[in-house]
């Protein structure tokens, strides 16, 4: 503990060097910018910058990369909230209530709770990474396919939080998502499913394409179709720009809970950023005093998932720095960057290059402060975007979403898909079908299936891996929690009735 503290202090002396501060500032600014643009993620940015940075000292380069990574997590929420266009999958949940808040003239508060929540989560999670990395890593290694399956089932419970008033329509949306998730090569056998001979579909349909199609394109088309009939005003700003006392008191607990959910799951090799944001959403809805506000602009539903998203970003860096395990595309690129400098990431990196590792960790703390300073004042500026006349605003969203979808894979087929899904999204809105369950199904369906089948392949078909608490205690506990989550509200309702 004392040693860690000492190393961290040394790290701060590295990262507080004026030049390194400058690189951190550049990193977070670039990161925020690319986070705002859908389709361009931190992994591509780091890849583009790699050749440029060969001239830099490794410490400076990694300080910048860390800043880009954290910055992108911040920036992603901005377009989600204002334009209903999630730039990356971790920001999808934010769009649900964040955009509803923006339409009610509370965009500034949504952006503020996202920014402060990201700061709180980023800082706490970085602290956790500093002090409990080894414990976290041994926890992560406990997760095999059976345990992941348990986690996926637990995450599926979240769908109950976004089903909407009509159960049948909500389930229909979920089934649509599960079906879309089937598209592509089946990983265990190599057989192509629902690809209709189109090679571009072999890898499945990108979640970001579906999210942008259903949320941004569907919503924009819907607004266009209503434009002549009703004048629904979008308020850029109603009342104060700042978070009220009530906003604060409704935000701080979700920030902390989001962090507690995001960090451990982010550090799992197959954890990702989607599941923690989903889980945070359902937890907040269950605990909220006014759960009926969820889906219509509840601030908890922005605060929690945003914190979870940023905490999971720090979680991803934990196995990368401690073990050299890249658990996301960005982490894989950073690993390649380590190799470019002839550094061996992994268990020995802390011993061989303490200055670099601790300098980078320290600069993540500093980067978080920069990000807050950069994003909080910008919130007031960003919401002015909604003052743009509606035809221009929606035209802009359509162009922006299309551009983002193309830059994802440089692929025309993605654009066709985006617009088919977007028109489908318009239909769903006209028929009052909620779109969020579709996204939940699309993200979780394939993962749950993969892990389920992997677990059975390893056990050679023995189903006890899912219910025998002696051999797989963690998987069984996760499944039990999932069932409890699902059944408890029903039982409570029965008792009340």
């Amino acid at each position, binding site marked *: 503990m004392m040693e860690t503290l000492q190393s961290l202090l040394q790290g701060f002396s590295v990262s507080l060097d004026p030049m390194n501060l400058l690189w951190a500032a550049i990193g977070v600014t670039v990161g925020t910018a690319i986070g705002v643009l859908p389709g361009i993620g931190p*992994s*591509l940015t*780091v*890849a*583009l910058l*790699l*050749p440029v940075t*060969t001239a830099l000292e490794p410490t400076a380069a990694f300080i910048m990369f860390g800043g880009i990574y954290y910055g992108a997590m911040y920036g992603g929420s901005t377009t989600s909230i204002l334009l209903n266009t999630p730039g990356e999958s971790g920001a999808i949940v934010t769009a649900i209530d964040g955009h509803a808040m923006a339409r009610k003239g509370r965009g500034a508060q949504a952006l503020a709770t996202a920014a402060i929540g990201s700061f709180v989560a980023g800082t706490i999670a970085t602290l956790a990474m500093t002090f409990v990395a080894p414990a976290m890593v041994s926890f*992560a*290694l*406990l*997760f*095999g*396919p059976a345990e992941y399956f348990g986690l996926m089932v637990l995450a599926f419970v979240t769908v109950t939080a976004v089903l909407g008033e009509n159960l049948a329509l909500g389930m229909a949306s979920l089934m649509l998502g599960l079906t879309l998730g089937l598209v592509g*090569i089946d*990983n*265990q*056998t*190599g057989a*192509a499913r629902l690809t209709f001979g189109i*090679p*571009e579909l*072999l*890898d499945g349909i990108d979640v970001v394409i579906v999210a942008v199609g259903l949320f941004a394109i569907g919503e924009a088309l819907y607004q266009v179709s209503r434009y002549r009939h009703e004048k629904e005003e979008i308020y850029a700003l109603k009342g104060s720009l700042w978070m009220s006392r009530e906003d604060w008191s409704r935000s701080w607990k979700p920030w902390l809970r989001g962090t507690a959910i995001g960090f451990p799951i982010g550090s799992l*090799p*197959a954890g990702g950023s989607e599941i923690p944001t989903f889980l945070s959403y359902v937890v907040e809805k269950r605990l909220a005093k006014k759960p009926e506000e969820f889906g219509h602009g509840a601030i908890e539903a922005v605060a929690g998932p945003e914190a979870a998203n940023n905490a999971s970003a720090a979680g991803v860096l934990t*196995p990368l720095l401690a*073990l*050299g*395990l*890249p*658990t996301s*595309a960005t*982490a*894989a*690129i950073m*690993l*390649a960057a380590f*190799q*470019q400098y*002839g550094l*061996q*990431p*992994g*268990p*020995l990196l802390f011993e061989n290059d303490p200055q670099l590792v601790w300098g980078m960790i320290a600069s993540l703390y500093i980067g978080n402060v920069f990000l807050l300073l950069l994003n909080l004042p910008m919130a007031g500026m960003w919401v002015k975007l909604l003052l743009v006349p509606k035809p221009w605003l929606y035209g802009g969203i359509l162009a922006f979403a299309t551009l983002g979808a193309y830059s994802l*894979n*440089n*692929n025309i087929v993605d654009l066709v898909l985006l617009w088919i899904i977007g028109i489908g999204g318009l239909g769903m809105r006209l028929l009052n079908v909620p779109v969020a369950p579709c996204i939940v199904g699309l993200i979780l369906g394939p993962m749950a299936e*993969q892990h389920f089948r*992997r677990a059975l*392949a*390893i056990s*050679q078909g023995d189903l006890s891996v899912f219910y025998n608490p002696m051999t797989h205690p963690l998987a069984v506990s996760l499944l039990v929690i999932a069932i409890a989550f699902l059944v408890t509200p029903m039982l409570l309702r029965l008792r009340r009735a």
Partner: protein
Amino acid sequence: MKKSMTIVAAAALAFASAGPAVAEIKRLEITAPAAAGGGYDQNARIMQQVLQKEGLASGIQVVNQPGAGGTIGLANYVNNKKRTPTLLMGGLALVGAIITNKSTVSFEDTYPLARLSADYQPIVVAADSPYKTVEDLIAKFKADPGSISWGGSGPGSTDHMLYGLLAKAAGVEPSKINYVVLTSGGEMLSGVMGGHVTVGTGGYSELSAQINAGKVRALAISSPERLPGIDIPTFKEKGYDVNLVNWRAVFAPKDLKAEEKQELEQAIDKMVKSEDWKAAVKQRGWSDAYMPPAEFAAFVKQEHVRAEGLFKELGLLK
């Protein structure tokens, strides 16, 4: 125009004291049929740096076109002709994807320019695994094939090929392999380290950190002979006839003029002989595997046939 260029080049040749001069290739575009960060992308970006620095090409752009194991990038490369010079990265993994995805285009539709680098694959087990040697592992595999789970990326990947070759060499039917797909390098390593799958593999460069730190144990490596400085026995010396090179290479359009081909060949030849290229390849833990066009074209065909046969035995192809 071309002629005057040749004259200028010839004049430069006459004046230059060291080596034959190579005309600078302008606005070269390199397609990496994969996402940023992978082997193809890294090879492309190293080429970009070295070609630029050596003055062999300028205005170089790397374009990432991921999808379907690289076959999307390959199909676009073959079907969309460009006016500016273009190159495509490829390798053994893409050969596998061409076959398993039943791609309509293959490397036959390109001009194989040069093989560049090689990544040899060790197989690893957890540090506390009961299997200390390949012999231990194979003994158990022979007795009860299903009990050993082999982790690897997608069906038809180089990982899958390696296990197939090993099963064949050990006299076990390749279709008996209990292959578990783990999609990323991180999942693979944590799957092995956490004891969730028995065996894992990957490029030596991806696994070396964990091997050196003793987090996983390397049982054998797929190189034909021991690699300098790497203390892992080869499959060959253990008596298993397994030889797998995860090679990466560069391809050019098929219908180039002879002098255009020559221009590219010379540039690549100069590039692979430069100190910077050698250093970059070494830094990433790869081996230099340069093979000029004549030899390489035959090699690609051979690998294609070998993979096809292997996939039939693995049950991936009917």
